[in-house]
């Protein structure tokens, strides 16, 4: 190019490229089988008895429990808490007595826990809290595997620690 292209020229081409890209994206999305809605539903919602659940929580999913209900189960000592976060997070701290079953490595750790899970009267899955959904995925999987009384504590690690409830570190 002999002349140095002016900035406004560059900018207008850039804007056209962004618009063209967006248009192609929208067109592709319209005709693609994997297309998604232009405006999706995201974020938490509150269901009956003021339990906050992620947007993808379905009515037939395992029951969601509040912090109060989780504490009650914890005190009854008949529930097993399942930590779905990564191993490292579990080692840094978890609900006292909770077992570690990272969702990302489910296949690897699940076999070790079959006895403990089948003996428990109640299984409560939790993860980070604050819209984290690993616990939901894990609870669904456990329910599919035939476990009864699987529940999800969406408040998770965040609500538990904020309430100053018993925690422990290490494995």
């Amino acid at each position, binding site marked *: 190019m002999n002349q140095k292209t002016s900035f406004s020229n560059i900018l207008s081409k850039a804007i056209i490229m962004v618009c063209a890209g967006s248009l192609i994206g929208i067109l592709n999305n319209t005709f693609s089988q*994997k297309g998604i809605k232009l405006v999706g539903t995201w*974020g938490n919602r509150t269901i009956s008895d003021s339990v906050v659940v992620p947007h993808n929580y379905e009515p037939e999913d395992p029951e969601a429990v509040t912090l109060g209900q989780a504490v009650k189960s914890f005190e009854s000592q008949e529930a097993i808490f399942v930590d779905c976060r990564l191993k490292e997070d579990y080692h840094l701290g978890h609900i006292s007595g909770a077992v570690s079953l990272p969702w990302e490595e489910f296949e690897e750790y699940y076999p070790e826990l079959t006895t403990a899970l089948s003996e428990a009267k109640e299984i409560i899955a939790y993860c980070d809290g604050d819209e984290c959904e690993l616990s939901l995925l894990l609870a669904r999987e456990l329910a599919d595997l035939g476990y009864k009384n699987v529940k999800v504590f969406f408040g998770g690690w965040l609500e538990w620690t904020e309430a100053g409830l018993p925690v422990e570190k290490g494995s």
Partner: protein
Amino acid sequence: MKLLKDIFTDKYTVFAFRLLLGVVFVYASLDKIANPQDFARIIYNYKILPSFLINIVAITLPWIELICGLFLIGGIFIESSSLVIFFLLIIFIMGTSINVFIRGIDINCGCFTTSLEAKKLGGELVIREIILLLMSLQVFLFNRNFATLPGFYRKIFYRWLLK
């Protein structure tokens, strides 16, 4: 110092950075285009966009990345492409920094793949994005249209004219 400057502004350096940026952006866009729902989930995890914008960004952003990446590789509208990429990277850096340094939460990064096992967000990612940002700036400032497709075709066309 002058040598450093010469190397940095050399047409081969610009060319190398241009190719690298282009490949990175094309590569990063393909998986997102193939799995819009997963990419939307990743954007949602970043928690910086209002929810009504999440899907539309998931639909359009990968195509903008793809076009800019292809144009950089082919040497078409190099300045404009690097400018778009520069602004995209600024947004990415802000998004990751907010999550890594302010929120400190561990979420799926979603930069190269949409699988759950993908790399976790970290300071490392921010550093990588900053390096890419500097490259896009370098390409923008020092591009001299070396080894471009339009140039290549022009050459062939002139040769054909002179025959």
